[in-house]
């Protein structure tokens, strides 16, 4: 096929990706945007296939069929509450693809491949100019090395993130020495890249890069707490974008550059949004533990004798006379899969003429927009989902706030306790409302590990129990009233 046509189609694909993201800027156009983006991908794939001059399509067909089936099943089976895991897993696969592509490219140009494990520790005698002469060859080799590195880190890092979110891995392990240990690992991997660039036939160097990078991915992500995983995933996603853009430079391919940059900026911006919403620096998320200030605050002292608990039926009586109710969901709603139950409670209240809105904190749950997706699944109109900055001034005129499975995002210590590790994080000021009802299973802390003075306030009622069960009981009681 005429390479100009191929390049032109690639450009069209790039434009479709842009239009796709443009579509995502409004809920109304989002579905079409996603389809345009998918169309761009299809175009790029088809034109690549038409352009391949191969006699043997079997590997391709096999890969597409297996990948297509696995991907579809995953996408259609996954529960909305497990979305963070899903994204982590897909991201890991993307990293794995980059890794294997770069390796394949490497061996293609070498023209020889190891036949046995013994070969791996030898250096293949190859023409070192195979990758190109002078600067060009060096750039190509560096790009291969970096892609292997980034791809492998993304692969294992995302898999760890997945395991943590799926609660398969609960503890945190790290390299002794923390950031410094990781730094040394990275330096060693980069040194191996340099060796590989100097002597491309040096298989030992390549094997070392792969091994070190895979381990680095593990060690980088394992020490990070489960609730910080979204930040990690966004960052890894951004890396994979940058890696694609880098590849675009090597191949002079427009669509790789455009797509890669879009993904790269998207990941970075989401990372930044999350960090700002948590009032923490990226370095703190990646390397720091939560500040030790938490220990100073004694949960017993805060709660002792001041916590009032209530039954769902009592809450229903309170709701009966309310004019305006705000529902504040958090990670616990996702855990309890209570989104449909919450929607039914809201319906019951609205049927009684009560004004109901949802207050959505930017980092409620375990990924940005997590609550929105769950509530959208339960068919809550998105106009009812009100962002933090807009809902906060309304709490004073709110009769009852129902906090379901949210904790940190409502903790007044973020506003008031200067030494607290979450001090400065913008929160939902639910304590300004006339009455607060908190549904959770116990007084145990949320992700930040801090006690929440909200629970001990005079106008707060604790409803202990699983989120879904408690909400369903409230709805029943309200409907019978």
């Amino acid at each position, binding site marked *: 096929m005429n390479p100009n046509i191929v390049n032109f189609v690639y450009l069209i694909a790039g434009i479709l990706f842009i239009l796709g993201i443009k579509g*995502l800027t409004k809920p109304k156009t989002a579905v079409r945007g996603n389809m345009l983006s998918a169309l761009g991908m299809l175009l790029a794939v088809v034109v690549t296939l038409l352009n391949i001059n191969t006699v043997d399509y079997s590997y*391709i067909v096999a*890969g597409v069929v297996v990948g297509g089936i696995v991907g*579809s099943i995953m996408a259609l089976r996954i529960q909305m509450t497990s979305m963070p895991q899903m994204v982590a897993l897909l991201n890991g696969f993307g990293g794995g693809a980059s890794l294997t592509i770069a390796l394949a490219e490497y061996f293609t140009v070498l023209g020889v*491949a190891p036949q046995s494990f013994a070969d791996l520790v030898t250096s293949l005698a190859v023409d070192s100019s195979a990758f190109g002469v002078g600067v060009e060859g060096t750039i190509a080799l560096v790009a291969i090395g970096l892609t292997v590195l980034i791809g492998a880190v993304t692969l294992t890092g995302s898999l760890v993130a997945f395991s943590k979110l799926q609660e398969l891995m609960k503890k945190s392990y790290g390299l002794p020495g923390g950031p410094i240990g990781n730094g040394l690992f990275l330096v060693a991997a980069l040194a191996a890249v340099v060796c590989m660039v100097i002597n491309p036939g040096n298989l030992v160097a390549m094997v070392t890069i792969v091994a070190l990078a895979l381990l680095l991915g593990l060690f980088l992500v394992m020490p990070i707490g489960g609730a910080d995983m979204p930040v990690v995933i966004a960052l890894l996603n951004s890396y994979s974008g940058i890696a694609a853009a880098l590849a675009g430079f090597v191949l*002079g391919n427009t669509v790789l550059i455009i*797509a890669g940059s*879009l993904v790269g900026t998207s990941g970075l911006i989401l990372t930044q949004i999350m960090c700002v919403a948590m009032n923490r620096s990226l370095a703190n998320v990646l390397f720091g533990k939560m500040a030790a200030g938490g220990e100073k605050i004694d949960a017993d002292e805060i709660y002792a004798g001041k916590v009032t608990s209530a039954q769902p039926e009592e809450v229903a009586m309170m709701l009966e006379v309310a004019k305006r109710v705000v529902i504040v969901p958090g990670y616990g709603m996702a855990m309890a899969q209570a989104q449909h139950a919450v929607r039914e409670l809201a319906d019951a209240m609205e049927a009684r003429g009560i004004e109901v809105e949802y207050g959505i904190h930017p980092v409620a749950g375990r990924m940005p927009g997590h609550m929105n997706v769950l509530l959208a699944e339960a068919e809550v109109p998105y106009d009812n989902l009100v962002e933090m900055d807009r809902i906060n001034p309304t709490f004073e005129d709110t009769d009852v706030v129902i906090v379901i499975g949210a904790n940190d995002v409502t903790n007044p210590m973020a506003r008031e306790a200067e030494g607290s590790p979450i001090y400065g994080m913008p929160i939902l000021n639910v304590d300004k409302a006339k009455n607060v009802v908190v549904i959770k299973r116990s007084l145990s802390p949320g992700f930040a590990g801090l006690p929440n003075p909200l629970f001990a306030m005079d106008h707060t009622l604790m409803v202990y129990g699983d989120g879904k069960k408690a909400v369903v009981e409230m709805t029943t009681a309200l409907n019978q009233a």
Partner: protein
Amino acid sequence: MEILILLLALFVLSLFLGVELITKVPPTLHTPLMSGTNAVSGITLVGALLAAGSDGSPMLVNVLGFIAVTLATINVVGGYLVTNRMLAMFKRK
């Protein structure tokens, strides 16, 4: 080398455009944005196809290519489908 400057220009402009577009995405759509851009990053599939379909290379290359195609296809198909599922929920109302 002139081409390199042009590619650089393209890269820089894409970054600017990315910033402008992404900052316009409302928080409501941040999860689909994450999975959607994740699918876009599967554009590496293009490279994977070239690897899996290269004739006359060592078998290892084709096997690596097969793995790459499989992983990238999962990423692409899974990413777009799951994004579509989420977005369809937003559209209903």
